[in-house]
């Protein structure tokens, strides 16, 4: 494997890790506030469809992005209503949201575009185009550093840089602001937050809505940057990989970055090489596909470091009287 191949694999790692990273950070906000969210997949899917559909009809990808975020936030509000206001089962609500998105996107796509549940291909301003970073062309000739800068770091769509910027931002919000402290507290011990006179319901809704925004960007990235349009079930389990990454990262922003990059790398390798041969041993492509899930089960089992979720996760808060 030569240098350029490695660069190309790493380049597609970044592309594939971006939606995972955004969805993973989305889940991080929600779960740190004590709301389990297995509906990441559905929110991404809804956002992917609405961003592609609106970008196609308006010709502006930015309006598409807003529409994607809005649709994802609507699903977030349903999840919030079910799990915060009506104190329902958060897991069941997440399952419902996944199915709702899977069904509604195809239904609406068929009604609007009549193309068997997909949107027409996006072109021009209806897509996020790659951004050339300054001097990328100029330094591309420099050995080693040149290709890394030109191929790997430059030339992604704006959403990729947004996703990576979200990591330090999330860290700062969670660990350096008052809002972040309260958010984490509400996921560990909501009664304490309530006693301090801060609204548990308000904080949890805020977290769920932030989750919706980030899932919306992730979905929009899939449909308008990574690919040119929406196809049925295009998230293909990415929401669940993000969920796996979240556990793998032990609900921490920087770990989330490394984990999603690792999972992105696995996807990139599985995409590029079908079966990998090491000596006489052939690693089938299916194994690469399921490796993130296997790793997550191993982590969950506590064989390699223990993943301890926020203590009040999954439990509705009932104010004492």
């Amino acid at each position, binding site marked *: 494997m030569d240098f350029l191949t490695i660069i190309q694999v790493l380049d597609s790692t970044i592309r594939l890790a971006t939606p995972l990273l955004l969805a993973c950070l989305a889940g991080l906000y929600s779960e740190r506030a004590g709301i389990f969210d297995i509906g990441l997949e559905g929110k991404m899917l809804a956002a992917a469809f609405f961003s592609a559909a609106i970008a196609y009809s308006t010709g502006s990808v930015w309006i598409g992005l807003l529409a994607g975020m809005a649709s994802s936030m609507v699903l977030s509000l349903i999840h919030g209503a079910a799990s915060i206001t009506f104190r329902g089962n958060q897991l*069941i609500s997440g399952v419902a949201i*996944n*199915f*709702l998105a899977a069904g509604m996107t195809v*239904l609406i796509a068929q009604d609007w575009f009549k193309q068997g549940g997909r949107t027409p291909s996006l072109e021009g301003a209806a897509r996020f185009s790659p951004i050339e970073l300054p001097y990328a062309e100029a330094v591309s000739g420099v050995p080693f550093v040149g290709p890394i800068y030109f191929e790997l770091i430059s030339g992604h769509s704006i959403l990729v840089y947004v996703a990576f910027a979200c990591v330090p931002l999330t860290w700062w919000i969670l660990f350096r602001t008052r809002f972040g402290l309260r958010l984490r507290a509400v996921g560990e011990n909501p009664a304490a937050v309530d006693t301090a006179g801060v609204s548990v319901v308000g904080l949890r809704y805020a977290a769920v809505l932030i989750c919706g925004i980030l899932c919306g960007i992730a979905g929009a990235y899939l449909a308008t940057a990574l690919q040119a349009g929406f196809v049925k079930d295009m998230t293909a*389990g990415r929401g669940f990989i993000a969920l796996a990454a979240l556990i793998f990262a032990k609900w921490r922003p920087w770990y989330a970055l490394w984990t999603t990059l690792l999972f992105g790398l696995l996807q990139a390798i599985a995409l590029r090489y079908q079966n990998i041969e090491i000596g006489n041993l052939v690693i089938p492509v299916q194994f690469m596909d399921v490796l993130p*899930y296997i790793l997550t*089960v191993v982590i*969950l089992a506590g064989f390699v470091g223990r993943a301890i979720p926020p203590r009040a996760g999954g439990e509705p808060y009932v104010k004492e009287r």
Partner: protein
Amino acid sequence: MDKMPQWADIVLIPLISLLLAAFLSALVILAIGESPVTAFNLMVDGALMRSSGWGYTLYYATNFMFTGLAVAIAFHARMFNIGGEGQAMLGGLGVALVCLYIPWPHWTFAILGATLGAALFGAAWAYIPAILQAKRGSHIVITTIMFNFIAAGLLNYVMVNLLRPAGAMDPASPNFPEATHLPTFRDMFSTADTIMFRGSPANVTFFLALAACVLVWFLIWKTRLGYEIRAFGHSESAANYAGISPLRITVIAMLISGGLAGLMSVNTTMGEAERLVLNSTEGAGFIGIAVALMGRSHPFGVFLAAILFGFLYQGGAELALWTNIPRELIVVIQALVILFTGALDNMVRMPLEKLFLALRWRKV
């Protein structure tokens, strides 16, 4: 304090939830520009007015009974088994191996063997998440989701690399031998002059599903193990105090749940396709969640809800055939049922409780 009479809890709340889901689905159909009434008539016509329609409805219902019971029994132990899909896939593998590699003399023996194979493989796939939950405290919902994906990868590998006959293009096992053919409803109920259930896949496995409903009812309410499962589900600490081992109950409940989910494959793999194909489960494992919620985790409720979803499935296929409404409408209805009967249960329950309380005060 008893807030509501029991019939309201068991009948009224699911009914209202169902009506809400139906109302929203009707709005969706209206928004697409079709008439909900016509759509409903088409569905009834296609699923219930002909014996072949019933053949499909009951075929789907058979799947949903198994997966619904699987989710229901886990609910009784207060566990959420989302892994029905993966367990059913593995069950399919069990059925295929039993049918392909054991020379069965007659279908009666073959169905016993296949039942055993399906249950064993399904249970084995549920065993690992169960033991991890019981011993290491890893959340069973997450592990079973992961196991669904791992099962899909495993099945894909086995089909493409091992079971596929040499030279065949599509990833599927060879056809099962003739002796393992299960009698369909057509074979069983047709007379010399009238052919019933023409071309429909319902088969003898339906009665296996009915038997499973009865057995699960007996297990949960009439046996010591069932009592322990329910006790564990109501309060783990109390069950622990009474000498019920959490490890044992978690594992046993999940084994039964996984086994039931696996049994679904006897219907799809042996009864219908007569070979193992990719994605033979078609999401039935997930519909089990809606069925169990709708049926309030009671085997009889699961039976009714499974028939309802069988009707929706067959009716939805008819709609896709005759109108512009894609099959995905069923997925939306399924989502709404899960949402209203599961997650938004309190939205229906709270006002009803207030209403009954007010009525009682008036009487006093």
